[in-house]
């Protein structure tokens, strides 16, 4: 019976460590923001998620490489928080590249560059307001020193996504005719 104690502790410890690593990446990573563009507003198969593409300003590491790892260097921010991709390069030795202070690591699949950051969980109640990805949307990402990012929030016109949803709902209510018909 005693051998079950470490066996029961292991999954709890594994989940705790995993959660701690994810949280540490958010707290210690460099905060950037990247524009996002529409792809498939809701991924029905994965539950309540927004799916989108990261806007890398035309930089596509996968035009010549169909599959494999690749990295994208991000330019310095113009207004303090926004970034866009400046160029792509191989990930090997990227840490030593002084001109690439912030970079994102990803992989090419079928000619598309994916970083694992193209999904954001939303409440199902927000689905009507988010059937189409709002314009001027951007993703706040925390990037660690290895180029691995973590999405923390989606912004629309510099306001959190929740604010956008609430604003859209109030606009819809104002547009609805009153019960008396006036």
């Amino acid at each position, binding site marked *: *019976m005693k*051998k*079950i*104690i*470490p*066996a*029961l*502790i*292991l*999954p*709890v410890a*594994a*989940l*705790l460590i*995993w*959660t701690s690593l*994810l949280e540490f990446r*958010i707290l210690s990573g460099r905060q950037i923001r990247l524009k996002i563009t529409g792809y498939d507003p809701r991924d029905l198969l*994965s*539950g309540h*998620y927004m799916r989108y593409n990261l806007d890398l300003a035309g930089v596509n590491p996968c035009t010549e490489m169909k599959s494999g790892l690749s990295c994208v260097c991000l330019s310095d921010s113009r207004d303090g928080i926004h970034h866009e991709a400046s160029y792509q390069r191989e990930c090997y030795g990227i840490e030593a590249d002084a001109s690439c202070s912030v970079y994102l690591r990803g992989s090419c699949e*079928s000619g598309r560059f*994916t970083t*694992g*950051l*193209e*999904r*954001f*969980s939303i*409440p199902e*109640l927000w689905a009507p307001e988010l059937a189409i990805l709002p314009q001027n949307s951007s993703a706040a990402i925390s990037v660690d020193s290895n180029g691995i990012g*973590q*999405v923390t929030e989606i912004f629309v016109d510099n306001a959190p996504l929740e604010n956008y949803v609430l604003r859209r709902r109030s606009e819809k209510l104002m547009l609805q005719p009153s019960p008396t018909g006036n």
Partner: protein
Amino acid sequence: MNLEKSLERWSKAGLISEKQLADIRQFELEEPSASWVIFGLSGLGVSVVMIGLISLIAANWYEISPNVKLIGYFASLMMIGFFAYKRDGTPGVIRESLLSAFGLYVLAGVGLVGQIYHLESDGYSALFFWLLIILPVSLATQSRLLNNIWFMGFATAVSLWVADSNWGVYGKDPDLSRFFISVSLPYVFLALGYSLPHIVSERFCAAARFWSYVTLLIPFAFAGNIAWAHADGSEFWDKAGSLYLVPLIAAVFAIVCASFRKVYPGKFLTYAICVTIFASILLSLVPLSTPIGKHEILGCALFIGVWAGAATIAAAIERRRLFDFCALVIGVRFVVVYFEVFGSLAATGIGLIFSGGVILGTAYLWHKYRGKVAKKIKEAA
């Protein structure tokens, strides 16, 4: 109820005396064994409670902050783990329910963390992670249910992994290495199930053997039968190259481990296992690997051979219900053959009457002789 009927039969046959009959009845009254009804009802009760809890939380899910969700989750996980530890030494419904709930709750936790941190997943990575961290619990416990859940999860993860390798994607060649690795896995687990019971958990090894046979007998055998009837394996053969050796080596490994097993020893059983494994390889791999052409009869014969092997194994280890089930599948396959050959006759009234007579006659003969067949196999084993 079944026990009562059996006691009456044994008493009438003179196998047990009146005193023994009374003693057995008294014993069962004092220590009733758990029935499947209790297991089923308990499982249903646990499920309903869990669904209620989940519904309550789900209705207010996005109002709860991520930190509260995580703290609440880990606190409840540790609580379930504590109670599971307390009950582990006592077999029964409560132990099965707690350990299974713990295992599934860990899986829920993987999903929860993925949702809170917006993680991208292909599905099978999360499942493999869950399987890895829950494996020690499966090995350490005597719970049957948790071990079966583990193998069901493993089968699901492997299926998703294979499906993710460009099958059906236009202009892309599927990753055949994943396919052949997945085909070899039942043989690998069969080998582990026969060779490791005295080293790791017997329950885990028993589940490994069970699920390996289920995989070989159902998806592999049915797909193989269809492939023998329709497939031309020459194109596959050109692309796969030496990958065919992977399941072949795995099958040989399984045969070797089965031959040197300590669980259910016996030469006859060894032969039955080896023949079943060999027949399954011929059934599932040959039509995909050779331009041998379409041979419906050979495919049907191999299908029946695999299931007959399984029936023999079931009879040799005294699993009467499994033996009956295997025999049923063989019987149905014979009936299908009959309709495949004489199908057009069944469109007429006379044809249907004759077909029905064949089915009834087969059922009668089976009912009359199945006990003797099972007994002969058991004596040979």
